[in-house]
């Protein structure tokens, strides 16, 4: 197999996504592991490679406010953040979503403090899942770039008009180079028409107020529900965009990404970069005779209930491996998958919940094998298990050692 394209980190791929989308405005604030994205864009803007206005802001809160305001004024806006930065921008996420401004925000997932760590899990981006932003979660550096283009196309569609987050894992994608093929700018222009939302734009002679006070619960319900309907429209709009994208660039993206599902009796559900490891584990388990498959959740908002149900109904066991933790509940995506299947008459016999990869902790092949074994047992019993943390004897020994060094024993 010959490789085309070039080696790019996820961060570079994200910067290229913004550049190929020919964005007009980039408000920025640095935060590891995202900084390389805005540094790259800053350099391109300075050298004139990208005809965008690049502005460094005093915080992510200001950054998101500026991003929303510029998008409302009619600019195509790109910005990026990570982890604590996303949380600092949090109230503005809801605000700009209510303005219905179709900007794209790349979030480079990193586990939230405290305690502090630098590697990825998804509590940051999932905290924003109810904000009204669309969410596309990428598995590869190529998918980061492609998803940014797709995200603009969906977000700017008049049937949607909502901002979008494209998510990638810190370190595992952001700092990892792998082959990425860059789309031709002319073809990108054919895929992504100019930004012209009907309700936005700036005209000095014609002032308008966005996101006004309604001070009235009927008006509030109406507009909030319009956001829901807009997000639901994104399911069909995504498919149209994905079809055009496949035609123009030869790469196909669906709402969910199935791997070896055809005759799988047990299916593991994952998202983001670690799904690559999950696919390898499925292939290895298949070689040992287990009929397993993997479903990767790609578009998380809107939630593609029909596609998920279609992929998971009739299976013996479905397990969700969440790379996040809601203390006091368990895995977040497990809840959503279980709720989706709850109304399905042909639902799996057993639903299982696993939590792993917190703070970027590796998930070893042997751990996947342990998951598959538990799934098979659960399916035979007809009763699910979980949440089960991927935590080994070795983890325990290491913890004992650190607690001793920290002087706490």
């Amino acid at each position, binding site marked *: 197999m010959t490789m085309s394209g070039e080696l790019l980190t996820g961060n570079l791929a994200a910067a290229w996504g913004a550049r190929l989308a020919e964005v007009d405005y980039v408000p920025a604030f640095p935060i590891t592991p995202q900084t390389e994205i805005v540094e790259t864009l800053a350099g391109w803007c300075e050298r004139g490679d990208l005809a965008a206005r690049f502005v460094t802001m005093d915080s992510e809160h200001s950054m998101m406010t500026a991003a929303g305001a510029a998008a409302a004024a009619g600019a195509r806006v790109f910005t990026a953040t990570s982890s604590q930065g996303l949380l600092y921008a949090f109230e503005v996420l809801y605000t700009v979503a*209510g303005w*219905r401004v179709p900007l794209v925000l790349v979030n480079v997932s990193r586990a939230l403090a405290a305690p502090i760590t630098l590697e990825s899990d998804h509590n940051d981006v999932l905290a924003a899942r109810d904000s009204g932003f669309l969410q596309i979660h990428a598995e590869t550096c190529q998918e980061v770039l492609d998803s940014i283009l797709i995200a603009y196309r969906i977000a700017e569609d008049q049937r949607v008009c909502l901002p979008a987050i494209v998510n990638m894992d810190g370190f595992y994608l952001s700092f990892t180079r792998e082959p990425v093929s860059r789309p031709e700018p002319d073809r990108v222009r054919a895929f992504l028409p100019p930004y012209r939302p009907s*309700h936005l734009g700036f005209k000095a002679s014609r002032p308008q*107020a*966005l996101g006004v*006070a*309604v001070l009235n619960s009927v008006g509030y319900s*109406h507009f909030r529900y*319009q956001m829901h309907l807009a997000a639901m429209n994104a399911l069909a709009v995504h498919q149209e965009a994905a079809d055009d994208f496949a035609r123009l660039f030869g790469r196909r993206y669906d709402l969910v990404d199935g791997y070896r599902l055809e005759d799988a009796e047990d299916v593991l559900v994952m998202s983001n970069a670690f799904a690559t490891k999950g696919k390898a584990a499925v292939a290895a388990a298949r070689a040992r005779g287990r009929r397993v498959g993997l479903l990767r959740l790609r578009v998380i908002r809107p939630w593609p209930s029909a596609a998920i149900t279609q992929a998971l109904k009739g299976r013996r066991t479905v397990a969700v491996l969440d790379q996040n933790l809601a203390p006091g509940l368990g895995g977040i995506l497990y809840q959503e998958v279980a709720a989706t299947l709850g109304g399905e008459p042909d639902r799996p016999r057993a639903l299982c919940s696993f939590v792993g990869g917190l703070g970027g902790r590796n998930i070893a092949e042997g751990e996947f094998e342990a998951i598959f074994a538990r799934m098979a047992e659960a399916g035979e019993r007809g009763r699910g298990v979980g949440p089960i943390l991927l935590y080994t004897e070795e983890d325990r020994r290491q913890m004992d050692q650190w607690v001793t060094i920290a002087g706490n024993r």
Partner: protein
Amino acid sequence: MVRIRFHGRGGQGAKTAARLVATAAFLEGWMAQDSPLYGAERRGAPMTAFARLDRAPIRERGMIARPDLVVVADDSLLADPAAHVGDGVEADTVVFVNSEQAVTQLLERAPCPGRLLTGDLTGLVLAQLGKAGALSGPLGAVAARLVGLSETNLRTALVMELGELGLPVPVIEQNLSMAHACFELVQPVPLRQNGDRPGQPASLRTPTYEPPTSGTARISALANVTVRKTGGWRTFRPVLDPEKCIGCWMCYLHCPDGAVRMTGATHPLIDYDHCKGCLLCVEECPTLALISEREAGLVRRSS
């Protein structure tokens, strides 16, 4: 259950009035519940407050759509459609309006389907305090009297609620004596006992997507603040004595509604169509060139 709805303007004391009657009823052994609905929290803007009193546990919350008793802090509210004083008022609803005018006079200007009563609480406050002041004590007292609560419990409620607001003892004393006057002003009225009415099953409708031009909370119409006249909010108006004015612009600077214009002769000109009567200008004028005058009559829009 007795459902009482107070209508006032921001700053007039309707919220505290609702607390007073609820506390008095609670002291009397009733179940009670009270809550305010502020709206835009703009001084002078119409607002409402609610009190529910019952012998049994109260299984209602929030706004009162069909009140048994309505207490209106000022007759100007009757003429303000944004105040919704008449909402849910039926023939057997008792409506008390603070007004100098008699029932027949009021009815000529503002038809009211309920059983209308009036009394001049503002006059009482002016006589007692020597100046304009919040109406919470008198409004609460009138409501307590109309539903038949005892003066003793109302007095305790006044001391508790006004004390909690941090009012000085002399002001509380004045409110106690105003409350006594209110107990003489009105008599308990028979309130309807059949206020409960079964709800009709709602017919739910499925919302459909609208393009963001109409499906987004935005305003693209031109500014219409000049059309929205707030002059009717006034119960007191600022009046200029040109002799005393030194043209210092303080009134202009402090008016929250831009209702003061400085003329070529450097003297202020008040736009009575939009002056809402907050009297900030009167407070800020260093030479006492602005004084407040009580508005007369029901409709007092422009000069």
